[in-house]
Structure formats: C-alpha cells, structure tokens
C-alpha cells in the first residue's frame, strides 16, 4: 500500500512541478499515470524512491514514512521499491546475470558484490526469473548485446530481484517499438498478478494504458485531475488531461489518430 499525501516538488525557484498531490495505490494492481510531458509524472515516481527529493508532503509505503529517511535507512527502504527506467539503465558492459544480481546490491555485502559471490538462493531466483521472461540462454551475454525488448526484460527482472513491495515503471515502453512495448506491458501485468505486486506505470501511450491497467490516473500541471477505471476515460476526460497540448495528445493516442488522419 502506497499512500501519498499533499506531495509538493519544486525545482529551484521555479513553479512547483507537483502541487499538493494525493494518491494511494493498493495491493496487486496496475495503475497507469498519464499526462503531458512536464505534467510531473516522472517527478512523482522519482519522489517515491527519493531519486528526487520531495519539497514537502508525505509518502508512506506499507505504513513507513519515506520522505524523512536518510543514509542506511533510505537504502534499506529503496531496496523494497523496484524501478524500471525508460532508458533501461542497464550496466551495459556487464553480463545479464550481473545486471540481474545487481538488484540484490541492497542486501549483500561489499566484497561478495565486488567478487560476484552472491548467495545461492539469489542466483537461483535470478535464473528462475530470467527463465520466466525467456532470457535464460543469455545469462553470460553482455547487456549491450541485447535488443531493446530483451534489455527492458532484464530491467524488469533486476527490479524484481529486490523482492520489492511495489514496482515503479517510468515510461518503460517509450524506447521500444509498438509490438515489443505490448510485450513488456503484458509481462508487467502478469508479474503483478503472479507476485501480488502493486505496479505504478508512467506511460505516454493511452491505448496501452487502457489495455493493461486496472486504474488510470490523469496528471495535469502537478495535480491529479482524473482517477478512475480505464472505461471511464472518455474523450471529454482525455481532452481535459491533454488540454492545450495537441502534439502530446496525438502521441498519446498513437496509431489510432494517425489512422484517422489518413482516412480523412
């Protein structure tokens, strides 16, 4: 259970990116966050694991206040929060197995990590998850040799290695072609169900959001202006979320509107 209350984030002296935002995410569900570029989606996710420092407000994960943690406490909290990145952020020159085991860095000591001597149960779990996503044959392949979709699957597995209590995904499919993107969304939905994991996904593609999420949150200028089941996201709600951002709206609709334009 993630509970966000009155979250404010301001970079420097500028206008706040998040303006007193409230959101709670319950267990075992996929929640998609949509909105224009600059609406604060990325900042929202990054405030949760404190890659970005919130200016004020409260974020609680299963009862634990995250905004005030420091040092070792923060690192122990971070390992309970998995994160998947738009650019994958894999350790490019290391092998797939090293990338996946890096998800355990919050748990193992420095020298075992340096010498790649991970506990056997970590290796077993890594191998099992790689098998689950169809990458078992690539354990010793370098990450930079994989295709985009394979890389993002490694990213997902790495996050799951943390045995997270929540999975954050920041535009996980934006760097992928449409078909591969569908595959990653599918995988995250299935894993959410299999592992009873709440998943919070920032996403540009509204069609994918509607297909794979059980709940859609619309962000505009740092506030939530829509929060409902996908079926409730009608044209009126869509226009409110993307008001004044025609380019973003077209991108969010993806192929649907491109096709319409061609027909017209």
């Amino acid at each position, binding site marked *: 259970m993630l509970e966000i209350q009155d979250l404010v984030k301001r970079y420097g002296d500028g206008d706040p990116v998040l303006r007193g935002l409230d959101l709670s995410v319950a267990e075992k569900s996929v929640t998609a966050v949509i909105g224009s570029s600059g609406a604060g989606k990325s900042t929202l996710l990054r405030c949760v694991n404190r890659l970005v420092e919130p200016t004020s407000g409260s974020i609680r994960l299963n009862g634990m206040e995250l905004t005030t943690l420091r040092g070792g406490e923060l690192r122990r909290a971070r390992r309970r929060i998995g994160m998947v*990145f738009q650019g994958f952020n894999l*350790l490019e020159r290391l092998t797939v197995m090293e990338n996946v085991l*890096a998800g355990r860095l919050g748990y193992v000591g420095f020298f075992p990590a*340096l010498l790649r001597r991970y506990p056997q149960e970590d290796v077993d779990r890594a191998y099992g998850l790689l098998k689950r996503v169809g990458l078992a044959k690539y354990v010793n392949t370098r990450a930079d040799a994989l295709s985009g979709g394979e890389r993002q699957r490694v990213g997902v597995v*790495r996050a799951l290695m*943390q045995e997270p209590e929540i999975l954050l995904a920041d535009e996980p499919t934006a760097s992928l072609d449409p078909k591969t993107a569908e595959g990653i969304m599918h995988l995250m939905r299935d894993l959410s169900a299999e592992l009873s994991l709440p998943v919070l996904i920032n996403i540009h593609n509204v069609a994918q959001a509607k297909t794979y999420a059980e709940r859609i949150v619309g962000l505009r200028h740092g506030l939530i202006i829509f929060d409902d089941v996908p079926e409730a996201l009608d044209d009126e709600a869509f226009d409110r979320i993307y008001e004044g951002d025609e380019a973003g709206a077209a991108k969010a609709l993806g192929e649907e509107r491109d096709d319409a334009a061609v027909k017209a």
Partner: protein
Amino acid sequence: MSRAATDGLATDGFRWRKPPFIANPVLRYGIWLLAAAYLVWAVSSIPIDPQRILAGFPRAAQIFGGAIPPDFARWELLLSGFLESIQIALIATAVGVVLSVPLAILSARNVVPVPVYLVGRAVVITARSFHPVIVAIIFVKAVGFGALAGILTLILYTIGFVSKLLAEAIEEIDWGQVEAMQAAGADYLKVLSYAVAPQVMPRQIGLALYQLDINLRASTVVGIVGAGGIGSTLMNAFGRYDYDYAFAILIAIISLVFATEIVSGRIRRGIS
C-alpha cells in the same frame, strides 16, 4: 527539383559572407596587431646570431662523424642501463596507475561533494605543474642518485596524468546506471564498483598502456639528471665524448620506443 522551379523565388543582390570568428572588428584586428608587435620585439630582444648557427654546422658534423659507426662494444653496460630504465617505467606505471584511481574519484565533480572535488583537483594540478625533469632533479636531491629517484618521479608523473584523464572519464559516464543502482539500495562503494567502474574500465586500461609508453620514454630522459637508467649511461657517454657509444644508446632507445608503440597499439585495438 529543377533550377527553373526555384527561379521565381530568386532575389537579386543578396550578398552573403561567413560571419567572422570574432565579431568586434577592433578586437579582431587588434589581436593580430598585438601578436605581430610581440613577435618583432621577441626576435629583436633575444640574441639570435647567424654566425653561431653557422659555426654549429661543422661541430654537428664532427659529432656525427664521431658517432658513425655506432659502437656496441660495451653492450653489457648498455643492456643493464636499458633494463633499469624498463624496470623504472614498469614499476612507476603500476604504482602510479593504482594510486591514480582514488585521486581520480576524489577529483570527479559528479561523484564527490564540491569541497572534496576542489581539493582533489588542486592535488592533481599540483602533481601536473612540473615537468618530470624538474621533479627528477628534486628527487635526486632528496633520495640520491639512482633508480629510486626515477621511480618516484615517474609515479608522480603518472598520477598527474592518469588521474586527470580518469576523472574526466568519470564525469562523462551515463548517470542512468548510477540511478539504477541507487534505486536498488546500493551504497556508495557498490555504486562505484557496479555503475562507475565498468564504464571507465576500457578508458583506464587504455590510459595505463599509454602512460607505460610515455614512462618508457621519460625514464630515459630522467636518467640524464641522475635518476638512473639508460639516461645516466647516455649522459656519461656524452661527457666522455664517446659519440659512437652514445649513438648506439640512441639507436637502442629508438628501437624501444618503436617496439612499445607497436605492442601497446596492438593491445589497445584488442580491447576496443
């Protein structure tokens, strides 16, 4: 598109020139004027005597005449000096490259707090501010003639060079990997070893090889001021007017430089 298609859009008399590099004309021509004035003053103030240059030619001919054919008779002395130079270079490179790693981290803006960075950079700049020959003179005074002075000199030289360039490599890494490791709950040392080290490792290996190359050359030079190796042998040969022996040493040094160039070039191609 045919020429005719754009003819209707043509306008007459629009002149175009590439904008000058320095926009202000006073500054632009002023710089040239100052440079010319300084050059005239510099040439006139330093005594450049054509007579002395001309007199140098027969003397050079005498030296070269004495140098040919090169004399390899004392090859054992040559070889021992040579091996000492290589030892100096290898030891200094190994120690210097290892010591340069922590200093590079401390002087990389993106991985340490600003005050640490400033101190680290100051140390690097200090290590780089003197030519190795000057450093060698100081170390020879401090620890006496011989290889130790040469090793210490080249360690300092290596630290200055490698840590500066390694720090720059660290500053250019892909930060996303660092964020991913932080998000997984990794502490500072684990982030360095997983997200930073692999990214700069090829650069560091390349730098180490390049520095070995440089140190092999420099180890022959620092010997001239008494810091051991083939340079000392060379200086003695010159001092005794043994030009043929000196020429043999020079040939040996050139061969060594060629050999290291070929070997290190091949290794570097191998890793990248």
